[in-house]
């Protein structure tokens, strides 16, 4: 019997929700790291019991946590509980929370158009390697990409991205200048795509040494040149592993699609009630079935008409249907953040999302019907799902 594990990051801790393959009864464990903001928790595809968590605080900074038993116990890598905290020569261990930019960090554009120094604030997204449980990528604010190859003990920047010629033109969105999406190409280990608010999408074809913007076709009215090479507020990009050259994007405005790994994008917003939103995801077995959660506007950040609706397209965009069964259809003013939607891999594909109101909803029938797994967590920042044998 399969098992499903849902990893939920919230404003005040992490929660692990587990169920058997029926996905009817759920066990809730947590809060882990109570009181801390947990931006993201994600498991290794090759060792599902290896989890990485980004624990952050405006007071105390960034902490990386790791579990080797599926979230039952946690540790800061490099400093296991009960072991000496220094090496025999007295050198302190544990640099797992040290994210230092390569060289002189330089400046990027600030909200008012002036230049502002790059300053590390937090890890938004952790993306474990597809092949090695000790290798994991971290997307951070201010935007940069880091990698650990020792299970999170130490981190090194892939600085070719931040040092791209366009860096001084990148600017923060309302949530900060964050690197929030990391897509590892399952067919080409040298290829990776990332997205930054508000710079846009970038791709490397040489394992992270060099990067190029992949924003042709995006249109953003909040920058002086709406079709500029960079400056676009990409909210999320999704890729189906069977078809890595096809990407779907939820942007600050517009839902977009590319069929050539980002060389050119076209709008597929179609009949959506609003083309603003944060998350986007793809059905496990139908690569043209995609999900978004329309939000009324960039200034209101709640669902249109007070109705929480997931929209599904079965045609790779343009034609969308509202999925409402089991979701509140009146007086609902929550938001669904960019990392707060995920899918499972069971035959009847499960779709999951969390809200800023603390609900985590699950559908076990590809979105036709929904039920809350939990209703009253702290505001949900991220949802990841693991399908276990």
């Amino acid at each position, binding site marked *: 019997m399969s098992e499903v594990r849902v990893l939920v990051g919230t404003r005040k801790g992490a929660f692990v929700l587990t169920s058997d393959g029926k996905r009817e009864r759920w066990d809730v464990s947590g809060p882990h790291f109570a*009181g*801390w903001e947990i931006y993201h928790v994600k498991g290794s595809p090759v060792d599902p019991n290896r989890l990485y968590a980004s624990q952050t*605080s*405006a*007071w*105390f*900074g*960034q*902490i990386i946590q790791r579990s080797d038993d599926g979230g039952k116990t946690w540790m*800061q890598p*490099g*400093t296991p*509980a009960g072991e000496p*905290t*220094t090496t025999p020569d*007295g050198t*302190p*261990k*544990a*640099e797992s*929370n*040290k994210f*230092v930019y390569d060289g002189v960090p330089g400046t990027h554009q600030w909200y008012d158009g002036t230049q502002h120094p790059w300053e590390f604030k937090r890890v938004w997204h952790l993306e474990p390697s597809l092949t090695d449980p000790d290798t994991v990528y971290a997307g951070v604010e201010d935007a940069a990409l880091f990698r650990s190859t020792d299970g999170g003990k130490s981190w090194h920047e892939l600085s070719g991205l931040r040092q791209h010629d366009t860096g001084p033109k990148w600017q923060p969105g309302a949530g900060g200048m964050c690197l929030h999406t990391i897509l590892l190409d399952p067919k080409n280990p040298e290829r990776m795509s990332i997205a930054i608010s508000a710079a846009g999408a970038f791709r490397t074809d040489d394992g992270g040494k060099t990067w190029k913007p992949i924003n042709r076709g995006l249109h953003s009215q909040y920058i002086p040149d709406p079709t500029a090479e960079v400056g676009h507020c990409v909210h999320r990009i999704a890729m189906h592993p069977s078809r890595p050259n096809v990407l779907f994007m939820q942007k600050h405005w517009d839902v977009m699609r590319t069929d050539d790994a980002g060389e050119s994008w076209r709008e597929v917003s179609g009949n959506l009630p609003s083309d603003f939103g944060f998350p986007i995801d793809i059905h496990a077995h139908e690569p043209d079935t995609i999900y978004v959660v329309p939000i009324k506007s960039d200034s209101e950040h709640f669902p249109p008409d007070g109705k929480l609706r997931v929209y599904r397209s079965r045609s790779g965009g343009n034609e969308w249907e509202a999925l409402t069964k089991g979701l509140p259809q009146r007086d609902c003013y929550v938001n669904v953040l960019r990392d707060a939607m995920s899918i499972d891999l069971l035959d009847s594909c499960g779709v999951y999302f969390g809200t800023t109101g603390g609900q985590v909803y699950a559908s076990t029938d590809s979105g036709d019907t929904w039920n809350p797994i939990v209703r009253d967590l702290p505001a949900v920042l991220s949802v990841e799902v693991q399908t276990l044998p």
Partner: protein
Amino acid sequence: MIRVELPHHLRTLARVNGEVELRIEGAVTQRSVLDALEANYPMLRGTIRDHVTQVRRPFLRFFACGEDLSHELPDAALPNAVATGAEPFVVMGAIAGG
């Protein structure tokens, strides 16, 4: 022994209950106290002061003997009562909601 009182979240990270006691050779200053604290509890590196600049994180304060020492120079001597262990060196999170 030097006594250090940490805020709740840092006690959790360091896996300690109550005050931390540190042995310090030489001058007792903010820097020597924090160096000793981080050497004994490396998981706290970066949580009180920046990894690289060693500057105090902006939402943290240092108190002792009823005084705010946050803006004292890092190499200034701490009060004698801290150096003798009569009073703790207090690391305090700023009141900023949350």
